[in-house]
């Protein structure tokens, strides 16, 4: 395996940059600017910029992936004419939205109208600083990274509600209310499904959870938790069949009805950032992260950055499943959604926790390592 890590790359970059800068400065300043602290600080900054760029790029690619996939499900082709196979379509959309006017309705609350989308976008992006992509490609193995990621993930309804309420539109308000109710209802089963994973892996650290899956991926023993997690994640991501807050048929565009231009781009981007986070979490918690089963030939797993490649393939496939669900299911109603959330999902997730605990107690987990399909 390669020893390159994201941090080492940014550290090298920072040293080279500062070294070049120092060569043109007088002696005292050179010493000050090339000191270890400055290099470390700059490398962290570079690290953040790389992460930001990578997550944005992936998000835009994810939108393209969804549009093409959705097109295929619908007997058509999706974006075709901008760039090769429409690859640049989303860049065009982004630049266009960047240039468009942002209209703030007169009656809208100026503070909430602007801060809502921005905070939504920022909190969605911060999670990427925590998620490990491969060994070494994270911000360091925080002991509670899973908890932190989910905590930031659950900020969203607050900001959605703020932006919906402050845009002073009845449809927006209804969308915001639905969004808050839905996300709060599905937060509980989501976390309980995660608890099952934590019980089995014995750690809150995402890196540890993945390394624990070297022998068997968790979707085998924790299939119930996986189902609950995916369903709750669909509700958290507000995708069909749970896209009630944006239900186009009755609430025009849901809580982003009054938003145009860059703020609307923030919403779209943050939605897909969250979709990416959801897919990544499914891969990390249940599909073994960047690990591959032992029956996969070693040539496929030992080239440089193999972990990232496999991780991204898994992530995009998981997102493809979400798109598939979107293409084939109708939307549920608010009361049905909440009833399912409180009456069905929570008992199911509690059952999943119980099963996980039982598996740990009777020590039959290694059995799953024998199955070739779940890894090994």
């Amino acid at each position, binding site marked *: 395996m390669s020893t390159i890590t994201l941090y080492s790359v940014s550290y090298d970059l920072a040293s080279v940059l500062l070294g070049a800068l120092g060569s043109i400065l007088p002696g005292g300043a050179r010493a000050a600017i090339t000191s270890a602290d400055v290099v470390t600080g700059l490398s962290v900054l570079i690290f953040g910029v790389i992460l930001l760029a990578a997550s944005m790029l992936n998000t835009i690619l994810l939108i393209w992936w969804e549009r093409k996939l959705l097109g295929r499900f*619908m007997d058509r082709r999706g974006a075709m004419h901008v760039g090769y196979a429409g690859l640049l379509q989303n860049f065009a959309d982004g*630049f266009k939205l960047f240039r*468009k*006017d942002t209209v703030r309705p007169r009656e809208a609350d100026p503070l909430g109208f602007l801060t809502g989308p921005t905070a939504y976008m920022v909190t969605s992006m911060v999670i990427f600083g925590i998620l490990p992509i491969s060994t070494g490609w994270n911000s360091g193995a925080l002991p509670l990274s899973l908890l932190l990621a989910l905590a930031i993930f659950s900020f969203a309804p607050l900001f959605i509600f703020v932006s919906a309420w402050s845009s002073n539109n009845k449809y927006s308000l209804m969308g915001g209310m639905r969004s808050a109710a839905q996300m709060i209802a599905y937060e509980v089963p989501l976390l309980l499904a995660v608890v099952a994973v934590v019980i089995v892996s014995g750690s809150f650290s995402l890196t540890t959870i993945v390394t624990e899956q070297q022998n068997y991926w968790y979707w085998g023993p924790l299939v119930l938790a996986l189902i609950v997690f995916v369903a709750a994640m669909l509700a958290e991501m507000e995708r069909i069949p749970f896209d009630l807050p944006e239900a186009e048929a009755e609430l*025009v565009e849901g809580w982003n009805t009054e*938003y*145009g*231009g860059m703020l609307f781009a923030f919403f779209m981007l943050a939605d897909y950032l969250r979709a990416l986070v959801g897919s990544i979490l499914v891969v990390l918690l249940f599909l073994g992260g960047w690990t591959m089963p032992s029956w996969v030939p070693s040539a496929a797993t030992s080239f440089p950055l193999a972990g990232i490649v496999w991780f991204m393939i898994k992530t995009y496939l998981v997102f493809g499943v979400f798109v598939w669900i979107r293409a084939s299911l109708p939307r549920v109603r608010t009361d049905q959604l909440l009833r399912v959330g409180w009456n069905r999902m929570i008992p199911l997730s509690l059952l999943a926790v119980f099963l996980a605990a039982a598996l740990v107690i009777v020590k039959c987990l290694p059995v799953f390592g024998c199955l070739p399909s779940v890894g090994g």
Partner: protein
Amino acid sequence: MSAPASSAPATRPVVPPGATLESPAPLPMVDQPAVPFIEIETLRSKEFIPAAKEALGSLIVEQGQTKVVRPVFNWAGRNSLFPLHWGLACCAIEFAAAFGARWDAERFGVVPRSSPRQCDVMIVNGTVTWKVAHKLITLYEQMPEPKWVIAMGNCATGGGPFRTAYSVVPGVDKLVPVDVYIAGCPPRPEAMLDGILELEKLIRERKE
């Protein structure tokens, strides 16, 4: 968008009337390269920030706007035209058919949005009556700039077969400025896509 084109770019400092031309000599910036070369010595002096500002400013303002920013935004604007999702009359059915599997307007990046705030182009797909006229104007005004209007079909163009009727606006250009007219009653989906491509051409040739 409709702001008048600014006067000639200020490449040469304006000499106030009555001043002599000998001192100070105006900077001959026209013949110089766009990015003035910065001496290393300048970097250490107090002039670093003004010099860098000048260099970067001339790069971004003059070169960037005309050679990078405008073409990129123009390319983006014309390739991502979101029409308003609404249906007035018969043409709305062909409008919907253009998003169907056979024509698939999404190939060109055309995705209908239901909220006027997120739209770039309003496709008036049908007969406009006086009763809906002020709502149409409101919708047009709710759309953020830059925005365009396509009059789809004969009714939106000039009233069509209902031109003489008491309740019909004889052409939507009486209400909002129209960029592209599509003939047909109703126009086929191909014609609608052709109208959108025509609008793209219009945007490409636009002088800002």
